[in-house]
């Protein structure tokens, strides 16, 4: 089977790649109009009415050649504005969007004027950010807002929550009319004498109203397509437009009957979730599983060919890339490269545990090869029965260097979800959220990526009696002066106390933000797609989902482990240096301590399959996880730890002084659970062995291993086989997730010099891929530095 790309998707790709991102004020204007009219009404209804107002009035368009339709903003690749979450930073940064170093957006004078005059003044004092800060108690606020922070739950303070997976099966198979019916029945059955019913009624009505607006919204596309078809001169395109009109007349209101309709519903759901809330990391269920029955029936009936199915998939891929959201500068640096984190997962086992790779799974890989844009962030589930044929195709694509897809291990993730209390069928349905987090469509309100937690800063504070070395502030508890640490264990104890203190305050802050979302941001559309909301009579933001987690991730396992190993070996075992000497060197950023710095380099580092230091890394990961799971969240669920940084290891490194492992002040931290940059000297097999020693099941919100490969060692078929074996081995050893950058350091250097020639160079950043030239310069450097695995 060859891989032929249609001229249509080639053209669409070219077009969308070159569109300049802009800010679109339309949604902001519409929600403001609506909110002005609904003052005083219950919030769920206000949100439903606002959604209705937006969907009936926003500009819609169908671009030349598109088959799958549905747009979030008045222009392609434009970001809508969500004044209800925050206006502060937008107001401050709006004029800088075009000049800032990362994720640039063009803002016209007209947009600027509209937002500043018509939108933002209304929202003063009414946003999530302002309310959340009111809920945060003073001491937690102090623990949070130091000049160099240990934890940072900024994402949900300044954006919607996102980071969840809705149920995509129900809208495809039952249609929104089916969902409306469920809610209408529930409404009829309400016993209004029950006090609970008062709020339930409002909730049900908010969902029904929103779902109806969604169906009407699709009908607008149907009408637009029909209009366009009447003007269309090209006979083929005219037929296509009439087909689009048919499809949008039918779905998502009614159950899909065809592959095309199922794909169109899939896209409407994905897009509308992101129009309701500006949450990022909005990810999908297994597309290949959802559309497969339609594909199979139509192919057997001779109504669909692989070529036309693939073309539709490629059109869907392009829609994912078209979607945009805007972060403030800080978050844009954390998640640089216009990363929306929309993961689309394929492959994996079915509900009975059998491998479920099907023909559509293969077509998706072909579409990925052809389209090769940063979004969707394609994830592939691998299990012990994944066919080698499929893994080979996946690895071959990885070897070409786009960093996609990234790979997830069914054989570890499913058991870890069972341990979280899910049942077997649910666990087997998992797909990936945002970066590496597990979700189950319509079951788990994950609050993944709820906060970043800097483990390395905690060690710095432990070595300085709670004082930040960069600012001199007393940030953490006084856990003892260096002179008191006469054993290695005492250092560990001080470190643990710092972690305990900050984890506790972090959970309080995350819960405060959670409560602000509950008060101000009910999500009736999303709730319609969470199975238990109807039964519970609760919006998803209030804990309507079956499982509710809040998941903050620890960053810097390798730096802490390597640093502790240095202290253990050089100070306590070999007694070659005193703690005071090492601290002096750290204070001087190792300037003037060349022999010490060299001796530090010689201490074994995490990532080389050396048990002694790897055990410390295991301890660091476990201690953080054990601490996080102690806490309850604000939606009746619990906290759930992960160990991955997105791309925050670079900015978080800016908050930490020099460390005993020889890392200099303000340098990037290690990325995910990967070894520190340059510390892995023994190649990829040793890295895999080391990283697999961590308790990945315990870090049940995900771990991230990033491996960089030189393209030279992935040239031949044999080498590709060996690469596959590496993946299989990592997963057999118990790894969670692995991703690869297969691009030579020289190529990246070239791209820095001549960005215009490398516009298409995709690289793996963290849990996502981005165009290299779109990244912040310090992140570019970090990617180049990550050890390039090369044997000779």
């Amino acid at each position, binding site marked *: 089977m060859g891989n032929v790309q249609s001229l249509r998707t080639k053209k669409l790709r070219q077009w969308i790649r070159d569109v300049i991102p802009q800010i679109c004020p339309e949604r902001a204007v519409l929600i403001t109009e609506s909110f002005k009219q609904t003052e005083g009404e219950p919030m769920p209804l206000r949100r439903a009415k606002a959604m209705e107002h937006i969907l009936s009035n926003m500009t819609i368009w169908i671009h030349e050649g598109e088959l799958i339709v549905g747009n979030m903003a008045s222009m392609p690749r434009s970001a809508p504005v969500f004044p209800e979450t925050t206006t502060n930073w937008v107001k401050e940064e709006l004029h800088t969007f075009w000049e800032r170093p990362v994720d640039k957006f063009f803002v016209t004078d007209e947009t600027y004027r509209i937002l500043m005059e018509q939108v933002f003044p209304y929202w003063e004092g009414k946003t999530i950010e302002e309310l959340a800060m009111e809920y945060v108690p003073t001491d937690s606020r102090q623990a949070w807002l130091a000049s160099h922070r240990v934890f940072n739950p900024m994402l949900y303070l300044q954006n919607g929550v996102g980071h969840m997976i809705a149920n995509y099966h129900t809208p495809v198979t039952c249609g929104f009319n089916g969902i409306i019916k469920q809610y209408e029945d529930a409404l009829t059955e309400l016993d209004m004498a029950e006090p609970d019913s008062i709020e339930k009624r409002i909730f049900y009505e908010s969902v029904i109203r929103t779902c109806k607006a969604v169906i009407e919204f699709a009908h607008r596309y149907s009408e637009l397509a029909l209009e366009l078809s009447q003007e269309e001169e090209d006979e083929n395109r005219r037929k296509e437009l009439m087909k689009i009109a048919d499809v949008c007349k039918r779905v998502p209101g009614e159950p899909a009957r065809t592959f095309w309709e199922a794909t169109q519903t899939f896209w409407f759901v994905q897009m509308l979730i992101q129009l309701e809330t500006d949450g990022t990391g909005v990810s999908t269920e297994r597309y290949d599983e959802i559309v497969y029955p339609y594909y199979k029936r139509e192919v057997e009936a001779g109504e669909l060919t692989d070529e036309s199915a693939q073309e539709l998939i490629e059109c869907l891929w392009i829609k994912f890339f078209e979607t945009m959201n805007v972060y403030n500068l800080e978050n844009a640096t954390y998640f640089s490269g216009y990363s929306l984190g929309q993961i689309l997962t394929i492959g994996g086992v079915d509900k009975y545990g059998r491998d479920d790779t099907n023909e559509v799974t293969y077509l998706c890989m072909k579409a990925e090869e052809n389209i090769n844009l940063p979004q969707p962030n394609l994830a592939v589930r691998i299990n012990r029965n994944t066919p080698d044929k499929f893994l080979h195709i996946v690895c071959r694509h990885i070897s070409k260097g786009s960093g996609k897809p990234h790979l997830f291990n069914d054989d570890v993730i499913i058991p870890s979800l069972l341990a979280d209390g899910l049942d077997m069928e649910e666990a087997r349905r998992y797909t990936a959220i945002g970066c590496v987090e597990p979700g189950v469509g319509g079951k788990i309100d994950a609050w993944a990526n709820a906060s970043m937690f800097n483990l390395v800063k905690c060690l710095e504070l432990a070595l300085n009696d709670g004082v930040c070395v960069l600012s001199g502030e007393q940030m953490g508890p006084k856990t003892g002066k260096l002179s008191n640490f006469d054993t290695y264990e005492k250092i560990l104890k001080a470190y643990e106390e710092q972690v305990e203190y900050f984890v506790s305050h972090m959970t309080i802050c995350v819960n405060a933000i959670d409560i602000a979302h509950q008060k101000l941001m009910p999500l009736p559309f999303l709730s319609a797609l969470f199975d238990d909301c109807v039964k519970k009579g609760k919006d998803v933001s209030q804990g309507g989902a079956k499982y509710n987690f809040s998941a903050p991730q620890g960053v810097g396992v390798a730096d802490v482990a390597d640093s502790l190993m240095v202290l253990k070996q050089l100070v306590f075992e070999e007694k070659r240096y005193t703690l005071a000497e090492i601290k002096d060197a750290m204070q001087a950023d190792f300037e003037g301590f060349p022999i010490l710095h060299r001796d530090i380099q010689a201490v074994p580092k995490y990532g080389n399959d050396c048990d002694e230091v790897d055990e410390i890394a295991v301890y660091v990961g476990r201690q953080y996880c054990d601490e996080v799971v102690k806490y309850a969240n604000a939606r009746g669920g619990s906290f759930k730890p992960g160990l991955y940084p997105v791309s925050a290891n670079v900015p978080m490194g800016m908050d930490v002084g020099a460390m005993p492992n020889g890392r200099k002040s303000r340098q990037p931290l290690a990325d995910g659970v990967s070894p520190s940059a340059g510390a892995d000297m023994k190649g990829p097999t040793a890295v895999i062995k080391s990283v697999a020693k961590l308790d990945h099941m315990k870090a049940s919100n995900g771990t991230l291993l990033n491996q960089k490969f030189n393209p030279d060692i992935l040239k031949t078929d044999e080498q590709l*086989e060996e690469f596959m074996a590496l993946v299989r081995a990592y997963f057999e050893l118990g790894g969670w997730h692995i991703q690869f950058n297969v691009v030579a350091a020289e190529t990246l250097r070239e791209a820095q010099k001549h960005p215009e020639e490398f516009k298409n160079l995709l690289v793996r950043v963290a849990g996502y891929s981005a165009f290299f030239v779109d990244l912040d310069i310090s992140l570019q450097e970090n990617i180049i530095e990550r050890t390039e695995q090369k*044997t000779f």
Partner: protein
Amino acid sequence: MKGIVFNIQKYSVQDGPGIRTIVFLKGCPLRCKWCSNPESGEFCPQIIFQRKLCLDCRSCIVSCPVKAVADDRGYGKVIHKELCLNCGSCVENCPSGALKRIGREMTVEEVISEVEKDSIFYRKTGGGVTLSGGEPFAQAEFVEELLGQLKENRIRTAVETSGYVSRQVLERCKDKVDLFLYDIKHMDEKVHKAYTGVSNRRILDNLKYLNSCGKKIWIRIPLIPRINMEWDNIRRTFKLAEGFACVERVELLPYHRYGVGKYEQLSMDYELKHIKAPMEEELKSLLKMIGEHFPQVKCIIRYH
């Protein structure tokens, strides 16, 4: 039992089937002028000097008990070999790692425990351990014991050899070796001697012997432009390979210059300054010619 090892390289996908770990053993009776591992020539640990890392702090000069280290023409350092006791005090006192010791004593057990770590990868790919060098068989007793231990641990073995080995050593070791990666550098005895320092007679004899024992062999030819790449030599080598039933394939290893920097670090002269790496087209046409003349012989190009 101890041997001198100068590197253990994991995830090697070039030297034998599957994912392998290469154990590089120090010491070689040959002195091939193109050798990219010149640090492997001598049998004892050696000190190398990397000029670009030198801070010029003079710690080495001060610490040397016999004044073997000296300034080198105003920049960098030079070690006078005739004085050096190989005590390592200059290395210990070097803050930047500019002075480094190459090669260390390892016991068979130490090597085994390091290579065992990757056994999951060998298992998955039909890989294993390759002994390389230097000439591994030159550390005969160590190698014999190491190979025996590897076989006992059910790890597949390969040895990359120059073939310049005593027959007794081969006799003792051959059954513990699953695959021989056997270098044939030149078919002409005189040329061979001129560029490697030794005659090729023993090498060709041993190849015949291993073939007669039924040992699996991959012949490897380093392709050095202007030295052994001319068709006549290639043809003769392939003719030889064709005649041996146990030779499964011939691998061509195009000359490269990645080792040149090491000569400077070892204060050695690199004699092949004038030779360039072969061009892609040259290799392609050579491969084509081989295919036409020796269609029965499996031939592969291995890049560094």
